[in-house]
C-alpha cells in the first residue's frame, strides 16, 4: 500500500497530491505536462518533493518533517523512464542485467530468457542502445525495470511506441506480473484502453501553476 501526501514543485509548476493506493495496479492519467512523470520521479526518489510524506507498505520513504529521504537505491522501486534512459555504453544484455545482477537469488522473480522472449528482444543482446529502433529501446527499458523485480513498478507510458500486436502481447504479461508475482504498479498512459485492461483504479491528475 502506497500513501502519498506530497507537494511537487518544478519551476512554476506545482502539484499537490494526496492519495492512498491500495490496489495492485493504479493507472495514472492526465494531460501532457500535468505532472505524471514528476510524480513517478518523486516516488522513485529522484525528485525531492517540497514537503509531505511517502509511505510504502508501512515504510517511510520520504518525510519532510522527520527529514527522512531514502536514496533511490534504497527504495527498490523500479522505474521505467518515458525516454528509456538506457545506458549508452552497455550492450542490451548488460542494460537488462544492470539491476538484476544486484539482486540475491531469492529476489530474482524472473528469468532473463523468459522476459526477453516475451519482449522479443533476445536477438538484440549484443547491440548498443544507439543501434535500436524507438520501440526496441522501449522494450529493453521495460525489460530492465521488470527484471529488477522491484517492490513497486513505475511505468511511464511503457507501450507508447509499440505496435498493436506487441501491445497485445505485453499487456497480458503485465497482468501476470500483477497476479502471479504480485508486484504492484503505477501505470502512466494516455491510452485509457491500456489502463482499463489492467485496472479500474485510476488517478486523474490536474496540475496548477503557481502565480
Amino acid at each position, binding site marked *: 500500500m502506497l500513501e502519498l501526501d506530497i507537494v511537487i514543485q518544478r519551476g512554476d509548476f506545482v502539484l499537490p497530491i494526496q492519495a492512498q493506493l491500495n490496489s495492485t495496479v493504479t493507472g495514472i492519467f492526465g494531460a501532457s505536462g500535468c505532472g505524471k512523470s514528476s510524480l513517478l520521479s518523486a516516488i*522513485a*526518489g*529522484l525528485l525531492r518533493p517540497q514537503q509531505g510524506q511517502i509511505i510504502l507498505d508501512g515504510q517511510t520513504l520520504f518525510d519532510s518533517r522527520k527529514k527522512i529521504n531514502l*536514496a*533511490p*537505491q534504497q*527504495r*527498490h*522501486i*523500479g*522505474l521505467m*523512464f518515458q525516454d528509456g*534512459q538506457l*545506458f*549508452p*555504453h552497455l550492450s542490451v544484455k548488460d542494460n537488462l542485467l*544492470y*539491476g538484476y545482477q*544486484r*539482486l540475491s537469488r531469492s529476489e530474482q522473480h524472473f528469468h532473463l530468457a523468459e522476459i526477453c522472449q516475451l519482449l522479443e528482444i533476445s536477438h538484440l543482446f549484443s547491440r*548498443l*542502445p*544507439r*543501434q535500436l529502433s524507438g520501440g526496441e529501446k522501449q522494450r529493453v527499458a521495460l525489460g*530492465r*525495470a521488470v527484471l*529488477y523485480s522491484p517492490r513497486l513498478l513505475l511505468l511511464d507510458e511503457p507501450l507508447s511506441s509499440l505496435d498493436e500486436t506487441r501491445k497485445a502481447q505485453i499487456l497480458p504479461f503485465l497482468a501476470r506480473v500483477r497476479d502471479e508475482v504480485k508486484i504492484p504498479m503505477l501505470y502512466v498512459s494516455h491510452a485509457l484502453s491500456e489502463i482499463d485492461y489492467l485496472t479500474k483504479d485510476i488517478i486523474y491528475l490536474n496540475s496548477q501553476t503557481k502565480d
Partner: protein
Amino acid sequence: MMYLSPEEWSALKLSFKVASFCTLVGIVPAIALAWLLARKQFWGKALLDATIHLPMVLPPVVPGYLLLLAFGHNGVIGHWLFNTFGWSFAFNWKGAVLASLVMSLPLMVQSIRLAIQLVDTRLEDAARTLGANNWSVLFSITLPLALPGILVGALLGFSRSLGEFGATITFVGNIADETRTLPLAIYSVIHQPDGEAMATRLIIISLLLAFAALLLSNYWSQRMQQRLGYQSHA
C-alpha cells in the same frame, strides 16, 4: 636504425619509467579530484581547484624548489616520510616521478573533470533506481562514460611528464641513471658548443617515445568511441 649508447638507453628507460609511474600513480587521485570538482559543492572548492593548478602557472623551478623545501631530506614532509615509512624522494627517480606528477596533475584533472561534467546525470539517476549505490554508479556509469576524458588526461599527463624538465632538475638534480631523464640529458648536451648532433639523437628518441604513446592512446580512444557510440550513427 641507429644504435643507442648506454647513456642514451639509460635516459630512455628512465624517462619511460618516470612517465609511466607518473601516469599510473596520478590517474587515481586525478579521477578523484576531477569527480569532486565536477560533481560536488564544498567549502574550499575554489581553493582546491587553484592549488592543483598553481604548478602550471609558475616557472617550473618554483614548484621544484618548493618540493625541495617540503620533500627534501630536511623538508617537513620529507623528514617525516623518511622517519615513518623510510621513504625518500630526495635525489632519486621517485622524486622525479613526484615532480612530474605535480606538473601534470592539473592537465589530468582538467580533462577528466570536463568529461565527467559532460556525462548526463539522468543516466546516473537511472542507475540508482536499479539499485546501484554511489560507488557502483561511479564505476559502472560515470567513469566508463568519462573514459575518453580519462584517456586524454592520461595522455596529457604522460606527455607532460616526458617533457618535464625544470621542476625535476630543481628538485632532484641531474644524476646519471637515477634522475637523468631524456629532457635533462637533452638540456645538458644542447648547452654544449658541439652538442647539437647528440641533442638531435636524444630528441629523436624522445619523439619516438611520444609518438608511440600518442598512437597507442589514439588507438584506444578510437575503439572506445566506437564502443560508446560517440562516433556518428553507424
